[in-house]
């Protein structure tokens, strides 16, 4: 096999050819799109989002892409969401509720099974999951399932250890809350090196008034 043949094969990735990636789903945030391979969220791959806690705008970040996906034919599956996904807020963000699929498995193993099935089925545009615990093997299975079903898998993981351990996910982001939105650190991406932070304004800028008597506590 000559070098030429080797370079033509899909197995060899060259840093200079980062633009070869399949076009991603526009995230709705141009600053973020510029850093993502394929200029958008990677369809057919697993995205891991590491968050310190719930409620920092982690869903808000995905909403523009989800709204766009929901107008297609495929499902948007939410697997084991930690709280009630509030329908009026989704509808206000232009997400078509008839494409939303909620799955509430009882056991962790069932949760991972449901994520894998949904990714692999090919009928889900996006699969968002809040797994209680995952290991590298499970993540690799999910990554393969996402590739097989051309589905965008998103795993939300909280806790610090997740950031340091390796992961087969194609894209890993870490979110850090800021007063108006979030700082996005890209920990891993295909065809690039870790970058960040990108500061995104999620429109959460509510003028905060500390209780006068409690200012010193915060």
């Amino acid at each position, binding site marked *: 096999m000559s070098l030429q043949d080797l370079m033509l094969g899909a197995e060899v990735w060259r840093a200079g050819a980062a633009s070869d990636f399949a076009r991603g789903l526009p995230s709705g945030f141009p600053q973020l799109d510029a850093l993502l391979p394929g200029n958008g969220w990677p369809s057919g791959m697993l995205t891991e989002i590491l968050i310190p806690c719930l409620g920092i705008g982690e869903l808000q970040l995905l909403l523009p892409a989800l709204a766009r996906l929901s107008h297609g034919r495929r499902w948007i599956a939410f697997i084991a969401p930690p709280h009630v*996904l509030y329908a009026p807020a989704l509808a206000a963000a232009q997400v078509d*509720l008839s494409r939303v699929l909620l799955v*509430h498995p009882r056991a962790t193993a069932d949760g991972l099974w449901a994520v894998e099935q*949904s990714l692999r*089925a090919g009928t889900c545009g996006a699969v968002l999951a809040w797994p209680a615990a995952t290991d590298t093997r499970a993540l690799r299975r999910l990554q393969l399932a996402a590739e097989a079903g051309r589905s965008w898998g998103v795993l939300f993981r909280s806790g610090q250890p997740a950031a340091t351990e390796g992961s087969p996910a194609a894209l890993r982001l870490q979110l850090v809350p800021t007063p108006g939105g979030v700082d996005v650190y890209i920990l891993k991406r295909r065809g690039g090196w870790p970058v960040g932070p990108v500061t995104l304004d999620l429109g959460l800028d*509510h*003028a905060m008034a500390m209780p006068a008597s409690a200012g010193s506590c915060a």
Partner: protein
Amino acid sequence: MLWLCLHLPDLALEVFTRGAPAADPLIVVYGRGGRKRRVAICNAAARCHGIRPGMDLNAAYALVGALQVCERDEESEHAALDRLAAWAGQFTPVVSPTPPQALLLEVAGSCRLFGGVDRLRELVRQGLAELGYRAFLAVAPTPLAASWLAHAGREACVSRQDALVAVLATLPLACLGLAVEQGRTLGGMGVRTIGDCLRLPRDGLARRMGPELVDIFDRALGRIPDPRPAFAMPSVFTGNLPLPVATSTVEGLLFPLRRMLFELEGFLCAHDAGTCFLTLSLHHAAARTTQVGLELVAPSRDTVYLVMLLRERLERIALSAPVEEISLHVTDLHPLAPRNLDLFAPVQAAAEETLIERLRARLGRGAVRGLDQVAEHRPERAWIYAEPGCGMAIRNGSGRRPRQSACAERKAEGRKRPLWLLHEPVPLEMRDQYPYLDGMLALGRERERIEGGWWDGLDIARDYFVARSRQGARFWVYRELSGEHRWFLHGLFG
């Protein structure tokens, strides 16, 4: 007219052994009430040990100690033949069971549809193998000729009436199923085959053997009509299958289940229908029957698909005892278009439900839902679980999508709603009248007052705020306007 006859030589045995791939030595015996019990038929394993039909039961026991003995059950043979007739309805509307062991299909009209008579015969043969039946298949222009050929084990395909005499001539008289004395008389005359019989003078034969015999030959050769009663297709499917060996493994159950679902597929094909609800009953020797219901989002009849769904269901079920027999009951038929052969037709729509059904089969029906919103002021009542895909509310049952007035929509735009709502508002600790959660919460300046619900007695009066925690999470909190003015956490701006 062209008749296809399915002759099932081993039916008496197969009604017992169809439930498992291969069995230990098993025989079916006949003779009850003081008469000597003899082997009617035995399976291959028993034959290996030297057991033969007609053998005395004790002799069979002497050959194989661990012998499974079944009493011949003509009722279930009859039922099996009827179910087979219902299954064969997918090939032709004219089906006529001919007990004890044969089934006649009139196939002149359906040959073209299935690509010729040979192709049709091959399809039937493959289907029968899937169902667990061994059969001889013969085709002839008259039902009697087809039956005789199949009974004699000649898999001939005669399509022209004038060729019949030559083909039938070589058949032994035994396949006519004559009375014992008649057979003996003819044997005494040196008549061994149908050809011998046909060569005899017609009037002499009628005088000696009775006019019925001449009639039979006339019907077989198509000289006089031979109408057959058409099988009345049942409108519901009820199938049962005894397992030769009681099993409690999923794999052990799937084998007979696949056979039964294949039978169901034929039945549904004949009705141009699919089903949305299957009831599977697993019968145990002593314990109560285990009922498994499978509900589908869209009608289906695909064996592979239904097996896949039932496998997920069965894997979740803890069986109280080994299963002795399974039965399947389907009453709910929905019209289903014949197989779609359109090259460009999207297969997406069908697959869409596949995922839901697959998830439901394993996780339970309630674990997979859709979402919808309701025009309501009270935040906890402004959403509802719905059937996935249709955005239809489950609880009000009306199937109407709650419509928001333009006014309400405009109002909603200005209001900030969190993406996460807690199932129940969580009371917050208070310090100096202000909420505290791992540190003081920073409250937003905007306040939204929500009051309402006096009409159904569940009224609320709250002031909602957006709050920010020390970690940076944004909460949706409220203070009660009445009572103790406590603070609650109600949502998160995810």
